[in-house]
């Protein structure tokens, strides 16, 4: 395939991934603020979108690695990146349809691992690194965020037990606006970077940029805009799951959950541990739910999420591998992969329209205690 054409295709695919990453992750920052009414749904996604865009420009340390060393990056070519992105996008869309908060980073890693194993053999995948960089943080970070949120929530209720109810509710609402904004900003600095890394590396492998260059301005701008737009569109299905289906969240809990998530994300990224914003935010919401009343948490929802988390990497890897297999046959194969991906994406979108979740009905959950319906 023509080098410039495949580069254009990869850049476009990367921006689409960035967009899905954005709307998948709006819930991380804003689900509890929307659920408690601290912010109206539209205001919440607008703030989150703007802060993601700001975040994209803020961070100065751009990791020129797209896989964090999970795969041998010398083996990566634009076809592999394209196939990996297709795997990640399709998994993100599927979990969004089911309203499950899964990690976009894990989807991207999975897609790249699958595509690389097909293109360069399983030897190009660093499985030890997969364990230390993906599996262990995925187990520890949600539990840590959950414990922090649980303790913080418990204390928040104990301390304010005899205080003026109106003051407490208003105070935590204001606090939530700040804490949710911090999560959104931290998300922008982390996740927009991933797409910039992908595009920059593609341009380098294609020879359009010298090795080791920083992302050009148009890459930063387009990646920031894609993730901000995705965030603004709002993944209402996931927002509903996290805000309403985990537990009935009140303002002190929302504030405790967002503060705990921010503390965990910043502490770990400061010390060089990459972790999934989604998993941290989800763990914190469960912890906050349990901190008020253990029985109020819908643990069945947690089980479904856990299954989605475990499946994310292998499922995206499988799609990435299949796409790489087909795309490596040549131009026709690449076009077929693109068409199939577009068709599947359109199908998932069509399925979502049958029972749409929007800004207008995001806080309406049919019956609070009803078992979660399986759309699968």
């Amino acid at each position: 395939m023509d080098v410039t054409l495949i580069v254009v295709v990869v850049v476009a695919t990367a921006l689409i991934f960035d967009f899905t990453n954005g709307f998948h992750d709006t819930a991380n920052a804003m689900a509890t603020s929307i659920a408690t009414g601290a912010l109206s749904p539209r205001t919440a996604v607008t703030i989150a979108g703007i802060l993601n865009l700001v975040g994209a420009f803020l961070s100065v340390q751009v990791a020129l690695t797209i896989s964090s060393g999970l795969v041998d990056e010398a083996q990566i070519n634009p076809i592999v990146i394209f196939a990996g992105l297709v795997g990640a996008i399709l998994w993100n869309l599927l979990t969004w349809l089911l309203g499950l908060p899964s990690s976009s980073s894990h989807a991207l890693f999975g897609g790249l691992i699958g595509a690389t194993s097909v293109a360069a053999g399983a030897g190009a995948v660093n499985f030890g690194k997969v364990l230390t960089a993906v599996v262990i943080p995925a187990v520890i970070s949600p539990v840590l965020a959950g414990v922090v949120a649980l303790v913080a929530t418990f204390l928040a209720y104990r301390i304010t037990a005899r205080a003026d109810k109106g003051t407490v509710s208003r105070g935590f609402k204001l606090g939530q606006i700040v804490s949710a904004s911090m999560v959104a900003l931290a998300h922008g600095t982390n996740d927009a970077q991933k797409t910039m890394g992908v595009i920059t590396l593609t341009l380098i492998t294609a020879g359009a940029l010298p090795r080791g260059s920083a992302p050009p301005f148009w890459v930063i701008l387009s990646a920031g805009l894609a993730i901000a737009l995705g965030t603004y569109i709002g993944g209402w299905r996931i927002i509903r799951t996290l805000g309403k289906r985990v537990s009935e969240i009140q303002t002190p809990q929302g504030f405790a959950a967002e503060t705990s998530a921010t503390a965990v994300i910043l502490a770990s990224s400061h010390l060089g541990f990459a972790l999934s914003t989604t998993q941290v935010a989800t763990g914190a919401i469960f912890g906050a739910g349990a901190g008020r009343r253990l029985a109020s948490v819908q643990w069945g929802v947690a089980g479904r999420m856990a299954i989605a988390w475990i499946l994310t990497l292998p499922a995206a890897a499988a799609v990435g591998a299949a796409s790489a297999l087909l795309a490596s046959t040549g131009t026709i194969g690449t076009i077929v992969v693109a068409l199939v991906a577009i068709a599947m994406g359109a199908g998932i979108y069509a399925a979502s329209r049958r029972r749409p979740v929007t800004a207008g009905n995001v806080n309406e959950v049919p019956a609070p205690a009803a078992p979660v319906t399986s759309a699968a």
Partner: protein
Amino acid sequence: MSIAWGSLLVVCAVALAVGVAVVALVAFALVGLSARVAEPAGGPNDGAPPAMSPAAGTAIAVICLVAVAAIVAYGLYVIVA
């Protein structure tokens, strides 16, 4: 394969300390601010004066919120740097 268990422990300790501290400080600030509001009529302590003087409550609230603001500012610094 090597896992920096030490750093991981530091992450856990710092996250727990900071997360809980911020929420507790805000909660104490709100308790302080509540002293500015009289007990609601018809409540269990109908019309009773607040346990703390409004001035003391406000002072506590200001101290707590300044501490929180400092932590948030440091958080922003960590994000940007």
